[in-house]
């Protein structure tokens, strides 16, 4: 697959994953861009051992984890200028609340649930995160329960 094609196919999914991790539009844009920079640099090392999706999601989620370190170094990063114009997003409160709840989960749970909501198969999620399939299934179940609980407490239903 050509890089441009990958970029078009995966941007939305990668952006949502990053957004679930940080719940901050600008940082998520940055993280997603960084992910594609890595993909661009490493594309020739991709050897079809895993599916392209698994490979890209691994890079994206690892980059999110790496963000923990960068957070301390650069508090705010720059974005291309004309992106900022589109930032006016009035989302339904429910959507905002979902992303907020996810971003408050422990780091690896954020990744797991984001992938699940992206319709990534559970055995693929296990391969991305590095857990067993059973473990992954249990975790997904628990996270969903936690989210439902939060929605109920908040009267979002």
């Amino acid at each position, binding site marked *: 697959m050509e890089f441009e094609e990958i970029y078009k196919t995966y941007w939305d999914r990668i952006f949502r994953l990053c957004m679930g991790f940080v719940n901050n539009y600008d940082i998520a844009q940055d993280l997603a861009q960084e992910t594609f920079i890595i993909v661009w640099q490493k594309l020739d090392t991709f050897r079809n051992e895993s599916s392209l999706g698994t490979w890209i999601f691994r890079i994206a989620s690892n980059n999110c984890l790496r963000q*923990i370190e960068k957070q301390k170094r650069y508090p705010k990063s720059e974005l291309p200028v004309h992106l900022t114009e589109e930032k006016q997003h009035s989302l339904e409160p429910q959507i905002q609340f979902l992303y907020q709840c996810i971003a408050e989960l422990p780091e690896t749970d954020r990744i797991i649930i984001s992938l699940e909501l992206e319709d990534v198969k559970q055995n693929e999620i296990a391969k991305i995160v590095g857990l067993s399939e059973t473990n992954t299934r249990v975790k997904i179940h628990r996270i969903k329960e936690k989210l439902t609980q939060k929605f109920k407490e908040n009267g979002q239903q």
Partner: protein
Amino acid sequence: MDNNNIDFKDLWKKQTISQPDIEDLLTRLKQFKKTSLRILWITNIVLFATCVFIVFIWYYYQPQFISTKIGIVLTIVAMVTYLVVYNRLLSTFKNIDEAQTNQQYLQKLIFIKRKQQFLQSRILSLYFVLLGVGISLYMYEYASRMSLFYGVLTYVVLFLWIGFTWFYLRPKEIKKHEIKINNLIEKFEEVNKQLH
């Protein structure tokens, strides 16, 4: 409790998204490379220039004493060691494989951070020792040509400076690095534990 009441997947996908133009990405890619290269260049150039300066002194003033020559060599060794280790550290970061599982990646990050922590304090101390001894030896020839008073004064000032860097600057620098790295290691370990 019924999960099906809320369609999380549907909500999840309603997030507003704006896909930046691919040109933006490529511009950023170039900037990215530039900044990291610039940092590398600045460090290397500064150290290289210092070494050139010292070699120039060697040729220009033609030192007679062996102590002067040993001093020069030690100083250069100190700088080169620092330079090599610093560059190595940077390259381990660049070569980390981003396509591993999260678990492997976290372990790798922790490993690298630990190594960095070890190297930084050791290398920094070594750097100060070599530099201090090197300069003291180097100055001997020139101080011996001065009157006794100025010769002693030169060494007193020099040792005060070395003492200041060793007892004040070095521990401060090491501590600064350690706090930062320890916090990170702790955080990465905490995240890694979530997977067990």
